């Protein structure tokens, strides 16, 4: 049918974008001087992570119409699962020194035989398990919580994230979670750089790996959204009563959407742990959920490519482009620029966000995707490859 053809060109464009993006990632990483471009590289990696988490939140908030604020909690679950499963056995006493070593004494990359193959398989398995743990917990929480009306759901999930955070800092769980201390020394994105015989890095792959993992997950989310189940989710968003009258089991589909969203938030949490080089419960605050929510809003609720673009803009602004606002600047004439000092960046930032929320409610993309734009204006050349980062 007509429709299928259209979606096929969309898929094709998306694939091309991703391929270009991944190629650019490798080229940039290996040509730019890593010492001078640290911020740029950090931004790219964080973008990859946040884009995935934003898409997972969009699946729930934008496509299913369930307003949940538990994203940071599920990321925490994912980050801890990933870290606990991958810290090398030899490193465990050092990491868990307060608790005299870890209660879990295996490491997935080593179980898979170590080396490059073990690393890849181990990290993949750990990331999938990170998602599975988050999804399993989501399933349990979903039983009572998903019956609530939208705003209660928001508060209940926010509360759940707080509970998770408290539990993971609990001293009695120390041998597993390392209490309030950070988990570290597990494989990160940089572990995927290929090293020569002398130990020096020959090919950098850290950004490529971050982008690849994130892109695969986002592609799966996209496939889901465009499937029969995705349509059922949208039906629930549009009108629950009508969706139910169409034979869509509300409880089942809401739970499904909640679990899948949490699965990817969990994987995103694992990626965040890889990005941050350490996993600590106190990082996964409500403020983090808010950040991700704002990315979703800026990108457009109901647009996956919007979430990806917004993730890049958000991360780049907060980590890089607006950094200067935090430093006092005195011009050559001796004029001291007023207002500039520590914290000003975030003020400007939140004002920009309020402007978007109030006056550009549809965000960058509304509920459109990048291919939709190409379809309408075919002569405009493809621009901006962040589409599927």
């Amino acid at each position, binding site marked *: *049918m007509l429709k299928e053809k259209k979606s096929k060109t969309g898929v094709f464009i998306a694939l091309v974008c991703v391929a270009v993006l991944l190629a650019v990632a490798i080229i940039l990483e290996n040509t730019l001087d890593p010492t001078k471009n640290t911020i740029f590289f950090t931004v790219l990696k964080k973008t990859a992570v946040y884009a995935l988490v934003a898409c997972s939140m969009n699946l729930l908030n934008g496509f299913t119409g369930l307003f949940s604020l538990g994203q940071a909690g599920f990321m925490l679950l994912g980050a801890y699962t990933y870290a606990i499963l991958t810290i090398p056995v030899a490193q465990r006493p050092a990491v868990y020194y307060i608790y005299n070593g870890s209660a879990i004494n295996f490491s997935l990359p080593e179980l898979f035989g170590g080396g490059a193959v073990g690393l890849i398989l181990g990290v993949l398995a750990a990331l999938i398990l990170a998602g599975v743990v988050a999804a399993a917990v989501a399933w349990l929480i979903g039983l009572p919580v998903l019956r609530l009306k939208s705003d209660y759901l928001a508060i209940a999930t926010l509360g759940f994230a707080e509970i998770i955070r408290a539990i993971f800092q609990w001293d009695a769980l120390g041998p597993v979670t390392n209490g309030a201390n950070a988990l570290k020394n597990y494989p990160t994105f940089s572990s995927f750089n290929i090293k020569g015989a002398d130990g020096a890095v020959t090919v950098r792959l850290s950004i490529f790996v971050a982008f690849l993992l994130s892109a695969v997950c986002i592609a799966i989310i996209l496939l889901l959204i465009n499937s029969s189940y995705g349509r*059922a989710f949208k039906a629930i968003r549009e009108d629950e009563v009508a969706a139910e*009258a*169409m034979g869509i*089991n509300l409880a089942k589909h809401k739970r499904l959407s909640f679990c899948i969203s949490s699965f990817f938030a969990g994987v995103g949490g694992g990626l965040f742990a890889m990005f941050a080089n350490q996993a600590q419960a106190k990082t996964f605050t409500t403020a983090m959920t808010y950040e991700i929510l704002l990315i979703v809003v800026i990108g457009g609720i109901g647009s996956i490519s919007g979430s990806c673009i917004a993730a890049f803009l958000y991360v780049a602004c907060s980590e890089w482009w607006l950094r200067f606002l935090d430093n006092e600047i005195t011009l050559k004439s001796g004029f001291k620029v007023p207002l500039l000092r520590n914290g000003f960046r975030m003020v400007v930032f939140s004002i920009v966000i309020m402007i978007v929320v109030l006056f550009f409610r549809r965000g960058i993309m509304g509920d459109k995707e990048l291919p939709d734009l190409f379809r309408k204006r075919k002569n405009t050349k493809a621009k901006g490859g962040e589409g599927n980062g």
Partner: protein
Amino acid sequence: MAENVLRMEDVTMQFGGVVAVDGLSLEVDQGEIVALIGPNGAGKTTAFNCVTGVYEPTNGRVSLLGETIVENHPQGKMKAQYKGGEAGKFTQVVSHTPDQITQKGIARTFQNIRLFGALTVFDNVLIAKHMRAKQNFLSATFRLNAKEEKRMREEAMALLAEQDLAQYADEVASSLPYGLQRRLEIARALATEPKLLLLDEPAAGMNPQETQELTDFIKQIRTEYGLTIFMIEHHMDLVMQISDRIYVLDFGKLIAKGTPAEVQNDQRVIEAYLGVADDAEN
């Protein structure tokens, strides 16, 4: 004797102290168009909601093609409060959610149109196909259900073509004119492959011409799909033209039933609609 398609027995719906539907019993047979009429607030939509699982009736039984789909009797606090009749008649509790009722073969439309407004006309119909597709979320995500998906799309498109809606397939549902939205809502209900179609005031807000078109449309879908139709309607022209039988509800109670001609001349029906003579004097 053939089974009734729909059979309601002594269905009573009591909200707190208010009895909205009181001991309603009726049958709808294969291929019939049956109308439920009555003044505003008579309990017609409540009766529909009891059939479709939106409400759980306080007492009574509903069966579809001989299978009991809803049954209840007063329990707990309601036991003492219950004001309806036939309290001891039913002993089972059978209840289904609206989606399960739809799966069993009852589709409905709503009094105030409930389309998936932001989605396209095509998607609106396609969503109704979701329920009957053999797939799970993994096979759907990874396109292992390609055959099933193709069948769903083709069926949805065919349905749109049959209902003269094909040219609007890519339009956003909420942008359609009112009459077409009604028609789309019916088409969407048909897409769930129902045995029985419930229409809740399908002609509400329509002008005479649109109503006439709708009348023809309803007759047409009955013959084309071999459907049984049970509807609530206020437009007497439409009701009298197409109904095989009519049930009249007033203050939750059935006050008359029969063919359009019988109902039209029933004294109680006239009173319910126009008021009793000495009421007017007061």
